[in-house]
């Protein structure tokens, strides 16, 4: 064993010496033999010739000796790669196309895998994250469209005190607030947590102490909080003296008691927060969890509902063991348990499906790229057939020929992989930007590291092997002799092989183009479905009067704002609203309707919104019966409401106008108008009952959105609104101003992501199909130069030659499409839940995908076919 290693090492490191020795030894043998022949009477030249003849192929023997002495892997590889480099230099164009193609495919795979890992695989950095579950509440009184709502702190306490199958339960409520410290105010994301939060998650303090159950009991005491390690380092310069320091959180003084361990930033994996606990002088901590949808004014309205909280629990294996011994039988039904390995963040639920689908798509693109390059390599090996033949005849083993082609494929893929690694980082950045706000939270999780690098390297190697497998096999398994003569018949199987590869490539491309078609149409359908506004556009601006001088009496300010907005140039209508529709936000409330008998035994609930006059006009929602709100709809008595058609149908048996009912804790209202149905939370939702309340009715809201419908472009309109607010109160901070379109796009992040990326991937595949067909037809033309010459000489027209090759290309394309369409329809089913407004087996899309590919095949074939048609018969006939 040791001898063997030493021997090999010497062969590796003293390669020159070992080679010289081999040379000298064989030389000695031949010369010794020649000397003997010379003694037998031959002339010195004849003696040497005979000696050489007797010895046989010196080079072959040398090669066998090298193998026998155990050619080191590194030596063999470096030799093969030097050969591969020489081949690449010989045709730099091909090498460049191949490397760029692979770079794009590998980059796409690397980038998408980074996201798959962050979104699907990664877990919270806490103790036994795999065993965490989220517990929501499916309370039919509050839930409208299947989303879970949070529940009250007292409910959490009750649940925790009972015998359940959960080891422990913790409560958490994420909140966006402001941190004031050292005269500076910054926005901060915070979690209000129960005392057992840190102990249950197994988090250790980096300084000071963490919160414990005693903090739960200290009701009415001064607020305490724990800050994250990152905040500690960034804002407090990791100063240990920060413990005991007081900061203002949302205007409330809170004492910092500790710093959590590095890397921990709350229980939303992709939304880092500072865990803290805030207590007010009330009996129950005002805790609430799981905002309903992103950026919504979470949960049920303040009116009458109890303060609510969302327990967040560690149980046993949540998939196989839901609550079986819950506090009551309704537990399992009304406390849906979800995967908590990433905490309460919703990124996984939202993006898991699209991102895994994208991984599938980029995988297909990689396969297409490999099939494409494989076909090109195969056709190129025709040009090298002679060389390969000579090498085989000279004694190169088949294994050596295979190794050479394999190393050429690997050299190409490694060049592509290296470029792809850099390109992947750009792609990751692009994807983050596409994801918008969700991308911000994901950014730290998609950074390149060893795992990502390993994946990328693996993909690169796999691609290299895939690319060269078929060409290598073919090169090694054909008879060398006809190749040396250049009679070409030896490669009869190769046209079939290349065409099969191109057909496979087309089949896979059908899937990609079909998928792209589905996602692009879904996006278009969703956008069309939400476009209730015929002309012009709606611009929205948030105006929050909390913590300002207008706080106590916001109405005059908003009145003036509305008046001012209506006078802005280009503005056709303006109004105020509490909920921005189609932004994902919502408010819902329980109703008490005389004569209404709910089918499920739960009381009726509806979405609602508080709006000013002109709301319906601004959004272009027609009032189908009754009247719009008027500024006279105010006062303490029975209020006026407008309901939508769905509300009227569901709760008031289509006879809504003038009906009386009450909501929440007993406010009496009557219906003054019926509005047409419009979507409320998002473009995908089913029609839901909606109730509209006038802003003027009881308690004028402090935080409203101004929405104007304007004929101006969005920049001018935005500037106008900004100037108007500044003129009214210079000190008022202006939140984000956006158009309704931008806002809808934000709720369509998934769909936009899929539509854009699948379209890009589909285009890449289409381009590759073009290159592939061009390559295979060029090959066919090269092989049949003589035949074409004969045809032209016999009087074939340009069109005949063209159609000869175009038919071939279209035939290949049709075979590919025939195989691809069933594949596409099957994979469309995988995406069915992501589609909108069309079926996963949409025939028109499939037909379009097929036609596009036939067209591309024709275009790809046209260039070489045209060259063939223009051949000069006198030269082509003489061609060898």
């Amino acid at each position, binding site marked *: 064993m040791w001898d063997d290693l030493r021997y*090999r090492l010497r062969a590796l490191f003293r390669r020159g010496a070992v080679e010289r020795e081999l040379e000298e*030894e064989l030389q000695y*043998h031949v010369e010794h033999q020649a000397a003997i022949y010379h003694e037998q009477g031959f002339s010195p030249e004849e003696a040497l010739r005979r000696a050489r003849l007797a010895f046989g192929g010196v080079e072959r023997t040398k090669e*066998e000796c090298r193998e026998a*002495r155990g050619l080191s892997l590194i030596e063999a590889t470096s030799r093969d790669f030097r050969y591969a480099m020489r081949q690449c230099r010989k045709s730099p164009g091909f090498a460049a196309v191949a490397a760029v193609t692979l770079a794009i495919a590998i980059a796409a795979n690397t980038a998408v895998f980074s996201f798959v890992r962050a979104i699907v695989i990664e877990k919270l950095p806490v103790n036994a994250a795999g065993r965490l579950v989220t517990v929501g509440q499916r309370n039919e009184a509050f839930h409208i469209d299947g989303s879970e709502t949070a529940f009250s702190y007292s409910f959490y306490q009750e649940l925790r005190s009972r015998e359940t199958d959960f080891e422990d339960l913790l409560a958490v409520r994420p909140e966006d607030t402001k941190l004031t410290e050292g005269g500076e105010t910054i926005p901060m994301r915070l979690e209000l947590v129960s005392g057992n939060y840190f102990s249950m998650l197994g988090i250790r303090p980096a300084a000071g102490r963490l919160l414990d159950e005693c903090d739960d009991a200290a009701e009415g005491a001064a607020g305490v909080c724990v800050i994250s390690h990152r905040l500690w380092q960034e804002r407090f310069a990791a100063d240990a003296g920060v413990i005991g320091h007081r900061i203002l959180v949302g205007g409330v003084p809170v004492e910092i008691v500790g710093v959590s361990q590095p890397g921990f930033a709350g229980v939303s994996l992709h939304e880092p927060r500072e865990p803290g606990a805030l207590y007010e002088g009330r009996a129950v901590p005002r805790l609430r969890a799981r905002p309903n949808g992103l950026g919504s004014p979470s949960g049920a309205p303040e009116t009458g509902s109890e303060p609510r909280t969302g327990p967040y629990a560690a149980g046993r294996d949540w998939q196989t063991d839901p609550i079986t011994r819950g506090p009551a039988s309704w537990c399992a039904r009304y406390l849906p348990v979800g995967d908590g390995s990433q905490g309460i963040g919703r990124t996984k639920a939202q993006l898991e499906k699209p991102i895994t689908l994208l991984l599938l798509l980029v995988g297909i693109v990689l396969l297409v790229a490999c099939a494409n390059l494989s076909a090109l390599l195969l056709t190129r090996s025709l040009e090298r057939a002679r060389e390969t033949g000579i090498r085989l005849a000279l004694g190169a083993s088949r294994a050596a020929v295979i190794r050479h082609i394999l190393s050429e494929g690997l050299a190409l893929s490694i060049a592509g992989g290296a470029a792809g690694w850099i390109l992947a980082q750009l792609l990751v950045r692009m994807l983050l930007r596409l994801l918008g706000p969700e991308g911000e939270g994901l950014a730290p999780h998609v950074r390149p590291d060893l795992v990502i690098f390993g994946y990328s390297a693996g993909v690169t190697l796999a691609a290299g092997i895939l690319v060269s497998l078929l060409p290598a096999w073919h090169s090694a398994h054909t008879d060398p002799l006809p190749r040396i003569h250049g009679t070409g018949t030896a490669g009869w199987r190769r046209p079939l092989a290349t065409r099969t590869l191109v057909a496979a490539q087309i089949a896979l491309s059908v899937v990609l183009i079909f998928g792209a078609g589905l996602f692009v149409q879904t996006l278009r359908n969703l956008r069309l479905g939400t476009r209730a506004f015929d002309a012009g556009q709606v611009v929205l601006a948030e105006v929050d009067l909390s913590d300002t001088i207008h706080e106590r009496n916001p109405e005059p300010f908003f009145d003036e704002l509305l008046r001012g907005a209506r006078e802005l140039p280009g503005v056709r209508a303006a109004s105020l609203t509490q909920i921005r529709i189609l932004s994902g936000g919502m408010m819902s409330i329980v109703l008490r309707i005389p004569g209404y008998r709910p089918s499920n035994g739960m009381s009726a609930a509806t979405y609602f919104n508080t709006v000013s006059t002109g709301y319906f006009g601004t959004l272009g929602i027609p009032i189908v019966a009754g009247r719009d709100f008027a500024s006279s709809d105010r006062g303490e008595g029975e209020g006026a409401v407008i309901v939508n058609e769905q509300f009227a149908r569901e709760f008031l048996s289509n006879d809504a106008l003038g009906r009386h009912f009450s909501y929440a804790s007993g406010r009496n209202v009557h219906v003054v108008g019926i509005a047409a149905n419009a979507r409320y939370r998002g473009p995908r939702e089913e029609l839901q009952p909606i109730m509209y309340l006038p802003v003027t009715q009881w308690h004028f809201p402090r935080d409203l959105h101004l929405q104007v419908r304007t004929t101006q472009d969005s920049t001018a309109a935005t500037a106008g609104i900004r100037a108007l607010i500044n003129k009214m109160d210079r000190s008022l901070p202006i939140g984000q101003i956006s158009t309704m379109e931008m806002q809808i796009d934000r709720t369509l992040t998934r769909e936009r992501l899929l539509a854009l990326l699948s379209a890009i991937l589909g285009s890449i595949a289409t381009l590759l199909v073009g290159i592939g067909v061009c390559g295979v037809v060029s090959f066919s033309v090269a092989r049949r130069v003589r035949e074409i010459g004969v045809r032209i000489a016999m009087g074939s027209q340009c069109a005949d030659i063209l159609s000869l090759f175009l038919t071939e290309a279209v035939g290949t394309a049709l075979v590919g499409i025939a195989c691809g369409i069933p594949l596409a329809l099957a994979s469309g089913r995988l995406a069915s839940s992501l589609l909108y407004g069309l079926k996963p087996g949409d025939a028109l899309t499939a037909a379009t995908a097929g036609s596009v590919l036939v067209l591309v095949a024709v275009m790809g074939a046209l260039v070489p076919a045209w060259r063939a048609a223009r051949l000069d018969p006198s030269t082509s006939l003489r061609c060898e």
Partner: protein
Amino acid sequence: MDNNRIELPQGTLDLLILKTVALQPEHGWAISECIGQITGNVLQVPQGSLYPALYRLERRGWIKADWRISENSRRAKYYELTAKGRKQLEREEGDWRKLAAAVAQLLDTNEAHS
């Protein structure tokens, strides 16, 4: 050429080389010459496969090589048996003898019955 020359049976080349260098250290040409002479030219080592076999045996540590001055006063690579090689030779020799005896016995038996 000699008609009584026979093809070298598979796997016997190693044994022949080991035995030859066991007699005295030799260089490649001499090894093949020696095998031919001793067997009365019945066994001829194909020169192309001699050297790969030498390299293989050297790698296994059964023979070792060094450069010496040959009889015609030139530098030549001489192979000699190592201790490990000697054990291997004994083992292979034993195996071969057993095989030859068994084959002979079988052939004799056939002769008797036919």
